């Protein structure tokens, strides 16, 4: 038996912290860390709702596994892009992104 309030508060907090990380960081890799936290919050919400309702398809846990897989694909491509930007510009500062010198 568990009170649903606790997981829901954790989902909200993790998503808010991730959003803060995306908005408050200039380094592209640190922005990605914020995105990872938001994805983790989404996975926790899936698992929580799956555990609190009776679902014969186990969609909550299966969806979380899919989200984790997609996060792995996303981070590999994103880090490839970041490394390409680093080779082209010499830094990965997002405040200078898109500006020509």
């Amino acid at each position, binding site marked *: 038996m568990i009170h649903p*309030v606790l*997981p829901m508060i954790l989902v909200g907090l993790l998503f808010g912290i991730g959003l803060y990380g995306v908005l*408050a960081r200039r380094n592209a890799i640190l922005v990605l*860390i914020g995105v990872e936290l938001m994805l983790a919050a989404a996975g926790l919400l899936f698992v929580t709702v799956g555990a609190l309702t009776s679902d014969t398809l186990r969609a909550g846990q299966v969806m*979380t596994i*899919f989200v*984790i897989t997609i996060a792995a694909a996303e981070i590999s491509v994103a880090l490839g892009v*970041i490394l390409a930007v680093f080779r082209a510009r010499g830094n990965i500062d997002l405040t200078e992104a898109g500006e020509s010198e």
Partner: protein
Amino acid sequence: MTTYDVLFTIAGTISVAAALLAVSTKHLVHSALWLIVSLASLSGCYLVLGAEFVALVQLLVYVGAIVVLVLFALMLTRAPIGRSAEHDTSRVQRAAALVVGAATAALLASVLISAFGNDKKRVNGGGTHLLAARLFGSWVWPFEVLSALLLVALVAALALARLPIGPRGDADGVPR
């Protein structure tokens, strides 16, 4: 407070504290290491919710693979060691980000709490055997498409790594 509540509160508190440190620390590498702590204790939350397979996948894929990739990228982009204020945006933008983040957290939590109420509910984890039967039964086609997605991501990352680019003015965009 039930046992589940206590265990979930412990793991969740560690997770939130580590996540806060990950988005606020001035050390680049520490940020990735705090992300490990946050995601590992989140897998503890999954264990409390009865999703032991998801908890192990979280540990293996997130902590074992994704954070190691992030650390590699930090090294390859010559991350400065030690404190540096270069990683954060200006003070005004950080204050605005704090407001937006706090407002989003409050909105999400209040909407979800009002949707699910606060009655004690039984944790219906299921078990790995049932999960495996569903994953390779009803969900087998999305699962196969995901393996194709992983292959595409692999090829895309390889193609990006082989792009003929160098510093500006080096070759004026001419492939080497």
